């Protein structure tokens, strides 16, 4: 068995290399913006994903539930090594259309707050932007130290498959990163 693995090692390495290089080439990420705001106590972020006009509207007008999954990671930048993870936050926002009343029920699953809007632009804005979202307490960070905030946004049209393996191959619609440091 060991001999067999050694014999096919190069083959599998080449195959894995091809797949590793190929997937990022295939999917061109959509762009977005990320800004970090500080006040005297809390660190906020404002993130927005710039998507095509019909990315959300087509599905939402057809009554399809659209969900955006915001995965925010805050880490301490380290040279020659992986960043030190400080915060790992997931925000899920969902817009469920009601075709009979032409309204959309907007739900923030992280906070549990929901609201109904009757304007699709409001629903799209709700889905595509995260405004002044509180990340973490300022006291957790050190001054004059470089930190990195990265946001990966995944867009789901329809019901979200909650199985653990469902999102393994789900590509991110947008990825943003912003470095900051406390003055």
């Amino acid at each position, binding site marked *: 068995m060991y001999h067999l693995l050694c014999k096919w090692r190069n*083959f599998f390495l*080449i*195959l894995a290399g*091809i*797949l590793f290089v*190929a*997937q990022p080439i*295939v*999917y061109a990420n959509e762009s977005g913006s990320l800004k970090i705001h500080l006040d005297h106590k809390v660190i906020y972020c404002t993130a927005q994903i710039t998507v095509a006009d019909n990315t959300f509207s*087509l*599905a939402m007008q*057809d*009554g*399809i539930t659209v969900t955006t999954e915001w995965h925010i990671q805050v880490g301490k930048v380290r040279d020659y090594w992986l960043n030190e993870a400080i915060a790992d936050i997931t925000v899920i926002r969902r817009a469920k*259309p*009601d*075709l*009979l*009343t*032409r309204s959309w029920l907007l739900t923030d699953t992280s906070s549990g707050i929901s*609201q*109904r809007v009757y304007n699709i632009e409001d629903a799209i804005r709700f889905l595509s932007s995260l405004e002044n979202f509180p990340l973490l307490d300022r006291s957790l960070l050190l001054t004059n130290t470089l930190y990195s905030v990265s946001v990966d946004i995944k867009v789901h*049209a*329809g019901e979200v498959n909650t199985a653990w393996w469902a999102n*393994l*191959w*789900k*590509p991110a619609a947008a990825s943003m990163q912003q470095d900051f440091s406390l003055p």
Partner: protein
Amino acid sequence: MSRINIMRLIPLFMAVMLLTVTVLLWPSQDDGGSPLAWVNVAIMLGLSLLLIQYGIRLLREHSEPRPGSRLRAKLVIAMIAMLLVPAMVIQMAASQMVERGMDVWFDVRVDTLLDRALNLAQGFYERVEKNMKRNLLDYISDGVLLAAVSGNMDYRSTNAYLNEIRQTEGWQKVELFDINERQIGAVQTGELSTLQMTSLNETARLSMHLGRVVTELVTRDDGEVAVGYAPLIGPTSVIGLLRVEIQLPTGVIQNARAVEADYRSYRQLEHNRQKISATFTHVMLFMTLVVVLLAGLVALLFARRLTSPIGDLANALRRVTEGDLDVVISESPQDELGSLARSFNKMATRLKQNVAAIEQAQKDLTQALDNSRQRQYVLESLLANLHTGVVLVDGDGRVRLLNQAVRDILHLPDNWIPSADILQVSHGNLRDIGDFYDELRHQKEELLQREFDVALPEGKILHVLARGARLSASGTKFSGYLLVIDDISDLAEAERAKAWAEVAQRLAHEIKNPLTPIKLSTERLQRRFRTQVDNTEVFDVCTKAIIDQVERLQRLIADFSTLARMPQPKIREIPVNTLLQDMNELFHSYQRVHVKMVDGQSDSICQCDPDQIRQVLINLMDNAIAATGDAEHHSVRLYAELTDEFVAWHVEDDGDGITEEAASKLFEAYYSTKVNGSGLGLAIAKRIAEDHGGELKLVSRTGPTHFCLKLPRHMPHKEGS
């Protein structure tokens, strides 16, 4: 490019095709990044890499591949191709079917139908809301309600009015709130005990804030309720809120929601139409690839099982070709291949036995050949060293073998070679050989012996003894004749000489005895009766003649005796010049005799019997002097020549020479050209020379007449002087 090279490129062609298909089916974002798509890509890439690796190995492979590997590859490729073609056809048909099904499912008519159904449902809701809003607009500035909100009505009157409104408008529930969201009154259909206090939500506040009539739908456990909010606008601002509810009919709502759910599902499917198609394609492709992989694996196992005995057989054949006959292959499969393996093992065993037998036979043959060569070598050596001539003739009369001795004896011409027809080459002086062979061939007896003379080209007559035997060995197919030729000239000569010697000795003995009394009687007669005869002259002549003839007869008899009883030479060393000096002193009275000493080699000696050699030289000198007569211009020359091995005495004279006929019989006994010669002088001289191991020969017959006595300077053994 040869066919083999094209065959070797097939895996690379297949890899390129598979890579092309992989690129065409590369997962796009529309597919949603299906894992199945990536699995398919991985499988196809893996297969492509395998094919590329196999193709490169085939191209780089210069030596003969392992036995059975090509057959195995062909079987696997054939089985995969047999499976791949229908699988691809099925996949294409299924794809077409799915596409057609999709077109049917997402038909425009279905789309329109769903839109209309949704519009109907939406119209129901809109109508309810519109009616509710229109009705609510009538109460925005209702004085009773404003008074109630302002606190100018009692609770009973307020509820009564609200109940009246409810009944008038057909609402199920009516609530009245003041600006502080405090409920002023509330009525509802049914029991009042079930009436519950509800607080205002954001919509209600929004309605109050904006001063607009707002409606909303609220879903509860008992169904859906249309809720309307109408701000009560006082003289200056909103001072209260009228909240009403209409319980929507359950059946209609269920139908409407069902239409909405169906519409949503339909749109969801339509939205995922491309993804569904891609997923179907990927599933089909995955199934095809799995089937191909399984088929390839099964084909590989099957081909390996099938080709393994063939490979073993080919390998065994290669080893047999290289000479390894100990190879044995497995006979396990009880099928045609097993039968083939058993046959091969039997063949190898028989081959091994045959090879062993051949090797043994070869060994025996080699040994026999060696023996034959040894015998042939011995025979050839024997024949080469034989002084007897041997000729082997086969049954067809062709010479198979003849040794050097027969060539030397008979002076055979060049056409006497092996394979020559003996009858054709036996012509001229060799005709007797052919006649002898012909007689041997036609006679019944096995052996034949004849003596006959053969005239040699230089005029010499050779007396040969020919013996022949018929060869017909029973163990061999060879049959022929063996001719043995012996030169018996010397033997015949010796026998003749011996016979003559015996005759001479007997005659000498018989004649010699009466000669002496005759001579003595004649001398007595001469002494006593000479005076008594009348004619003394005649008497003297007669008696002298008798005495001379008797003396002559005595000398003749002495020569006969000498020839018959030639003594053995008494060898001793003597200077050559001594003999020459003796000859010079003996013949110095003749002016024409010139004896020349050996210059610078006065002490050169030779081993010989000086008396016999002196006798030979005297004989030669006497003959030369006799041949020259009294002519003054003729001379006789005697000189000697020395080499390391031989000494040669030369006697030359300028006489009339010797005729050719005389020259041929010169050394025969009793042949003489002189009147009084016995004819034994040169014969005795020749015999002396031969007894010394040398020779006496006539170098030239005339101009000058030249004799040469050639003797070896050193004899093998010498007798004491």
